[in-house]
C-alpha cells in the first residue's frame, strides 16, 4: 500500500502510548494496532479527525505517500546513515 501511517513516530514525539490514544479516540487497541502496522485498507475521516485532535497534528503528519515499488531509501537518507 503506497500510503504509510506514521503513527508510531507521532506517538513517540508526543510521549503517548498506543493504549492511551485508543482510550482517547474511542477506538479499540486492536484497530489502532492495525492502523499503526499499516495493515488498514482505509481510514474514516471521523477517525482521522479524532487522531489529529488528540495528537494535535495535521493529517499530513500522520499519512505519507510512497510510490508503489519505491522501497529503496533516497540518496540523502543514505548519506545520513553512512557519513
Amino acid at each position, binding site marked *: 500500500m503506497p500510503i504509510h501511517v506514521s503513527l508510531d513516530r507521532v506517538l513517540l514525539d508526543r510521549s503517548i502510548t498506543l493504549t492511551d490514544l485508543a482510550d482517547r479516540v474511542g*477506538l479499540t487497541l486492536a*484497530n*489502532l494496532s*492495525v*492502523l499503526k502496522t499499516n*495493515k*488498514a*485498507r*482505509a*481510514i*474514516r475521516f471521523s*477517525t482521522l479527525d479524532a487522531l489529529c485532535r488528540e495528537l494535535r497534528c495535521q493529517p499530513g503528519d500522520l499519512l505519507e505517500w510512497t510510490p508503489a515499488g519505491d522501497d529503496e531509501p533516497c540518496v540523502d537518507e543514505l548519506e545520513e546513515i553512512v557519513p
Partner: protein
Amino acid sequence: MKAIGERSISSLIGFSLDAAWYLVLICLTLLSVVLIAGFCVELEGKNLTMDLPVAVELNAPVHSGAAAIDTDARIGKLRGSLRFPVRNGAFFAGSMILILIFFGALLWALTQLRHIFRSLSRGLFFIPENARRIRWVGFTVIFGELARAALTYYWSYYTSLHFTANGLRFIASTDISGVTLVVGFAILVIAEVFREGARLQEDHSLTI
C-alpha cells in the same frame, strides 16, 4: 414460520441438509457393501436386479381415442428402464464403481453445503472459504450432470448391444439436462458474488 431460531426456515434447511447427508452416507455404505459382496459372493440366482436406463425406438402411428382415426402423430422414441438379474462381472463392478463415485461426489457437495450453512449460523457470511465451497458445488453440479449423461449413454449403448425384444429396438441415447447445467452456472455466478462480498467484507473490517 420464523426466519431464524428454533422451528424456523433456517433450522428446517439445516435439518434437511443433515438428513440428506446421513441418507447419502447410508446409501454409499450399502452400495460399497454390495460392490464388495459382488467380488466375494456368486450373485446369480440371488434375486438381485438392477435397472438400467434404456431408450427404445419405435415408429408407431398414434390414433385418436375411441374413434381410432389416424392422426399424423407417431411415437418416435421412448425412455424407460430395463430390469435384469445381476450377474458378477466387469459390467456390474464397473457400474457399481461409477455409482459409488456419483454418491461420493454428492456426499462431498452436501458436506460443502453443511459447512457453508454452519458458517452462516455463526454470522460469517462473506468469507473466501464460502466462495470457494460454492464454486466447487457449482462445478460438481455441471460435471456431475455431464458424467450422468455420459453414463446414461453408456448404459443404453450396452443395452442396445446385448438385449433385444420383440418389436422393440434398443438404441444408444442420452438425456442431458440443460436446466441442470444452467443451474450449475448460476451457482458459479453466485460464487463470484460471494467472492466479491468477501473482498468487500475484508475491506470493511480493515477500515478504521
